[in-house]
Every structure is written in structure tokens, then in C-alpha cells.
């Protein structure tokens, strides 16, 4: 560790962080899982979902963007914050059209997995039934916007990893949606099934065709272990 290593306190536990690291990066390295949805290890943070909100010296901040600074006192795994996180996940469930039992992503879905991890048993908020278009025009990839959580992963991945900018946003507020770089539909874009953007969706919104149910339910990512276990175990091992 370099001389200017800094120490922060997360839920009473002292953690070492490198200068320039975010709170989330420091926590990950220490094996403390902070729930997140829009974040992805291969992409810069988006700050969309706010599920990683922690309290830094008493004030809410997103752990994915907030820099670790010497002496910070951070609350993360508390009843108060987990309840707030759970409500945000619940909001995303009622915003979209998430039919888990019939969804190809079930078991691999990070939204679903976060719901389980945060103890979301049933939705109490009223469903919004926001109308959203489906785009199945592309031969290898489809977009079911009813399952989109507007995490922006595909937008960032297509631009920064694939160098294509196939995706962007359009509209604002509750009418905001993921748009494609074409006059009409995805088939007119440079999208390929091997793009990073094609495999980075946390839900069943952006799906590669022809691979449905290749892994049976029961053997999927979060069927045996809760989301975040990899981070917790990596540090333990």
C-alpha cells in the first residue's frame, strides 16, 4: 500500500482506500458489498439507479461516484438505508412490466436478485403501466423496453467499449426511454450480438436471440447465491 493510503469507516469497520477510488471501489476491495444496479465493473459509473446510496458523514451520496476521502464515516448496511433501497427497487418493478416467471432473464436478473437480497416480498406501490415499445427488428438482438430500468449500461457499453454508439436516451421524465441510432429500429444500426452492449443488460430488456433458456432455471447466477456474494467471498478467500 502506498504512503497516502486513506482510511474510511463503513458501518463501523475501518477500510483502506487508495486515493482516487470511489467509496464503492474501496468497499468492493474490502469485501463489503454495496448493492447496485446500474453499475458494472467494466464501465464507468452512471449514477442512475441510486441503489448504492450510502450516508457519508450523515448525508446521502451515491457510492459509485463519490470519492473516498480520509476519515469519512459511512453508513451502508443499515435498516434505514436498506429500506430506502428496497423502495427504489420496488419503484422499478412497478414502473416496468416485469413478469419474472416468464422472463428469459429470471435467475440472472440483477433487478430480481436485488429484490430478493433486499427482502422485497411483494410490491405495494401501484403499477404505472408506462407504455413502452418493443423492438424485435434485429435478427440477433431484441429490446423489450417494458423491462428496461434505464440503467444506461447499453448506452455506455456501446459508446465506450464497442465504439459504436448504437444506443442513447430519448425523452425525459417518466417518458424517458432507450433509443437506437437509427431512423426507425435496431436492425438499421451497427448492432452485433457479440457487442458488449448485447450482453450487459441487468434485466431481460436487451436479450440475444436464440439462446433462450440455455441454462435451466435453478442453475442460474442468483439461484444458489445472493447477488453480491462474489464480492463478499473474493475478499474472504
Amino acid at each position, binding site marked *: 500500500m502506498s504512503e497516502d493510503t486513506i482510511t474510511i469507516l463503513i458501518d463501523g469497520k475501518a477500510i483502506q482506500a487508495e486515493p482516487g477510488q470511489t467509496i464503492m471501489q474501496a468497499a468492493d476491495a474490502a469485501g463489503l458489498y454495496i448493492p447496485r444496479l446500474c453499475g458494472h465493473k467494466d464501465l464507468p459509473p452512471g*449514477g442512475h*439507479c441510486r441503489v448504492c446510496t450510502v450516508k457519508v458523514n450523515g448525508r446521502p451520496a451515491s457510492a459509485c461516484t463519490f470519492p473516498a476521502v480520509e476519515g469519512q464515516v459511512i453508513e451502508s448496511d443499515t435498516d434505514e438505508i436498506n429500506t430506502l433501497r428496497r423502495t*427504489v427497487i420496488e419503484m422499478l418493478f412497478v414502473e416496468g412490466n416485469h413478469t419474472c416467471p416468464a422472463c428469459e432473464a429470471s435467475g440472472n436478473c440483477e433487478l430480481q436478485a436485488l429484490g430478493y437480497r433486499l427482502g422485497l416480498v411483494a410490491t405495494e406501490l*401501484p403499477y404505472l403501466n408506462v407504455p413502452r415499445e418493443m423492438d424485435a427488428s434485429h435478427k440477433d438482438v431484441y429490446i423489450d423496453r417494458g423491462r428496461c430500468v*434505464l440503467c444506461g449500461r447499453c448506452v455506455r457499453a456501446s459508446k465506450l467499449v464497442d465504439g459504436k454508439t448504437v444506443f*442513447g436516451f430519448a425523452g425525459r*421524465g417518466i417518458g*424517458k426511454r432507450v433509443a437506437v441510432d437509427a431512423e426507425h429500429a435496431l436492425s438499421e444500426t451497427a448492432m452485433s450480438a457479440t457487442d458488449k452492449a448485447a450482453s450487459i443488460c441487468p434485466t431481460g430488456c436487451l436479450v440475444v436471440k436464440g439462446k433462450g433458456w440455455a441454462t435451466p432455471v435453478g442453475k442460474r447466477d442468483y439461484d444458489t447465491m445472493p447477488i453480491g456474494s462474489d464480492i463478499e467471498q473474493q475478499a474472504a478467500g
Partner: protein
Amino acid sequence: MVEDYSQVIDQIVEQSGKDRSRLMDIVRAVHAKLGYLPEEAIGCIQQALGMHRVEVRDMTSFYSFLSQAPKGKTVVRLCDAVVERMKGADEVAKAFEEAVGVPFGSTSEDGSISLDYTACIGLSDQAPGALIGSVPVTHIKPSDVPRIVEALRGGAEASSLPQAVVDVNLRQPGPVVFAPMERGAAIRKAVNMAPAGVIGEINKARVRGRGGAGFPTAMKWDFCRKAEGNAHYVVCNADEGEPGTFKDRVILTEQPDLVFEGMTVAGFAIGAEEGLLYLRGEYEYLLPHLEQVLAKRRSLGMLGQNVCGREGFRFDIRIQMGAGAYICGEESALIESLEGKRGAPRDRPPFPVQKGYKNEPTSVNNVETLCAAARIIEKGAEWFSAMGTKDSTGTKLLSISGDCPHPGVYEVEYGITVDKILEMVGAADAQAVQMGGPSGQCLAPKDFGRGISFEDLSTGGSIIVFGPDRDVLDCMCQFVEFFIEESCGWCAPCRVGTTLLAKMMRKVLDGKGTKADLDALRKLGTTVKTMSRCGLGQTAANPILTTLQNFSSLYDARIKSDEFIPSFDLSKALQLGAEITGRTAELEEHHV
């Protein structure tokens, strides 16, 4: 057709210097030329700038004044904000629909007139108002509407309408913003002090940001000055969008020189060569006069090279128009918009003073703050800090509207109580006062003894009075509906939460609420407040949260004693099926 577009658009893009960061100007110019932004035009812009189509659409689809669908020759934007509806905007809307023959949100069959609603246009003191094209019309009565429509159909310019008059409505000028000024006085003093001296004087005056957040201005300038960068920028935030505020309209009409003076002083203090004034799209009608004032100042040597004779001090100001987005009043969203992008706020840190416009150190200041800064340099910190309270020095502009006989702008010393304000505007019988607009708080009479200051009632200056007969809770729901319209959609808690809040509030107002619904509103409101990314979401639940606290009896009067009433209406859901089959669904009585 496509070729026509491409010629016009290529020319516009060429004039912008093929600069992506001027996309807002390019798009506005194309929109003005074509009346809307057809997909072909987006394609031409994209090609001319070397951008992706989805990137252009990302920006254009964000702003409410930019349309993707063809519009009528004249666009009537009727303001349907809370105060306007209190003053009869609904009746005016009905009159427009009758006269034009189509509902709001559409265009007359002959293509002459489009009817749209718009959020607060900064004319709440002379409501109901509308923008016809960019021309403001005020005090519209339903009986005026047939003649207005007839004139527009006949090809008359909106500016020739008898209602196309904006009253200044400066009810009480004060010593800081509205006292007479001498052009250049503050700049000449400033350039004779070192930049650090200017900041020192501002610091001594203890002036804080007038937009509502109250950050110490000297500290902001000092951070910005000390931050490393290739260039530094001063930005004047003239995007006052908080419903019920219109003070910047009056400042920009009556004292534009003082604003530019303040920007120039700020430029000298932080080491900037360029200042940008971001003017909300709704205020486009102020642009010609502001440009004239800038030209005059250039001719007097108060902008340009060697400003006011100070060797090496180069500074000029550009006005950037917005296009209808409340969120752009948030400083980081404003910067994004200045760069020609959608007005989505940024995560902080880094703060704009570190990485702002074009990622360079930028000081974003409110119109009123810049006026105060100029005056402090002109008259001294001591003169300024003798006014107001201990932690809130100087004066504050209040935009007062709603149920009161004397709406308008008042310049008052900090510390003035709500009681005193109500007396001033002739509304001593107020039931409630919305302090700081929808994002502020709804005050009950028990709080009317409190004072306007950063230490007590902090406000950007929007004050809406609710008279004794007003349905305050309905107004609160409309406020939340405003936030739904204006949420940028970036983060989940604000995007989804505002929509849910209004839906759940409407249930209570419809008489289907129970105590459980109030608890749910409180929980959801707290989540939106705590988890949202920027100030919009963090304050969007305030209309509900502050009335739950201050007006609980109004809620109690609306709710039922049942333990639970479902929001889902089963018989209504079955209605269509029943009609089609010709059979009535017989539902059992609902028991809890």
C-alpha cells in the same frame, strides 16, 4: 424536400463553426426555420456535425419547446401552472379549444394554430398568461379569446394583440438591485482592486447565493479562481423556472446593465475571459433588448479588450438561449445545456467550480446575486452588510403571486416576516403560503411570524399566497404533477417516484384514501427526497411532505376510516368487457 433541408441546415451548421457544443443554437435555428424537427432534419444535422443520430435526438427530445411533429403556423402555449389555474386558466383553455376547434396538445385542421400547455412562464403576477410564438400575452380573459384567435388566423402578429403587454409590476424597489446605477462604476472600482481584493470585499459583505441554496458567493469565486484550468468561466443563471418566480424577468427588463456589470466583476475576480448568460426559452422576448445593452457596453469599452481601461483584462458575454426545461436551473444541468446537450444534472463532486463548462472551472451565479456583487463593489461591504440579518445580509427580491390584490416584485431586507409580507400584498387572511415555490415548503399560519433568511425561511423568492377558500391539497398535487413533467428521468427515485406520488395523492384527493395511504405517501416522499440525484428530486416531495406536517387536518378531512381501500377499481376495469358482451358483472360487496 430532403435536399431543401440539407441546404438550409448545412448553412446553419456552417455559421455555428461546426461546433457540436453549439447544438442548441443549431437546433433552435433549424426549428425556427422549419417549425419542427423532422427526422430528415435530424439526419442532416447529424451528418453536418459528424455526430450519431441518436446523440442529436438525445438532446432534441429533451426540451419542451422543440417539437418532433409538425406544428401550426402559430403556437399558443398557455401556462397551466398552479397560480394561472387559480386565476382562471382552465376557462381560458376552454375558450381556446372552442375558438380553435381542437383540444390542447393538437393543431387546427387548417394548420394555422397549435394549442399547447406550458409550465410557469414567469408571468404569475399577471395571470392567466400565454406565449404566442415567443410573445407574452397576459391577463387573458375567456372573452378575449375569440378575437385573439381570429386575429392570429387573419395573419396578425402576436405582438399586435392588445393583451401582448407585460407589466413591470415592480411594487417595491430597494437599494441593492433596483436603485439607480451608473454604468461601469463597479467595474472601474473592481479593476483598481486586485482580484483577491474583489473577492475579499464580497467576502466581507457575507453575500450568499440568491437562487435559494445560499452558498457564500466569495467562497464560490475563490474556489473557482484557485482551480486550475485552461480557461475560467462566469455563468449567469437566468433560467428562473420555479413556478411563481419572475424576479429575473423584472431585473433583466429594468436593470440588465447591473447584471452584466456583476458578470464582468465576477470575470475579473475569477480570471475569466468569457461570460455566458443562460436565458430560459420562455424569456426569448427579452433577448433583443439584452443584446442591445451588450452592444452598448461593448461600444463603451465595458466589454471586449482592456475592459474599462484595465490593461490585459479581456472579457465578453454571450447569451445562450434555453428551450423549455425547468431542470436547467440546476447549475450542472445548466452547464450540460450550455454545452449543447440534454439538461441532465451531473454527479458531484467534481463541482462546477472545479470542472464546469467544457470541464473548466466555472462559477454559476444567480442573476440577483450578480447584481448584489456589483453593488457591493460599488458601494462597499459595510454598506451592504448593514442591511438584513446576521447571517443573511442585504436585500432579497420576492416574486409574490396567488390570492392577493398586489402581486409583483418586492425588494425587501432579509429578516422580514411572512405576516409583514402578507400585509404588504393585502392578503392578511391567507390560509397558507407556498414559500420558495413547489420545491420549497407550504407554510401554515402558525409559521407566519417567521422571517425570510438563510437561518430561518430560505427562499429563492417565489411566494404563492393561498386564500381562505383555496383547495391547498389540490394545488400540492398539481405541484407534484409539475415535477413529473420536469424530471429529467436520469435517476429512478425521481423519475418513478414523482409519478407515484401524484398518483397516490390523487387517490387521497378523490376520497379513496385511508390512513395507510398517508403513511405510504410519507414513506415514498422520504425515499424520493433522500435517494434522488439532484435538487429537483430531493425537493419534489416537499409539497406533500410539508403539508402532511403543517396541514394534517386537511388530509384527515379527506381520508376514510376504512383500513384499506384498493386503488384498483374492479368494476371499472370490467366495464368495457361488460359493454361488449352486453352483460353486467355482478360484484360482491367489498369487505375488508
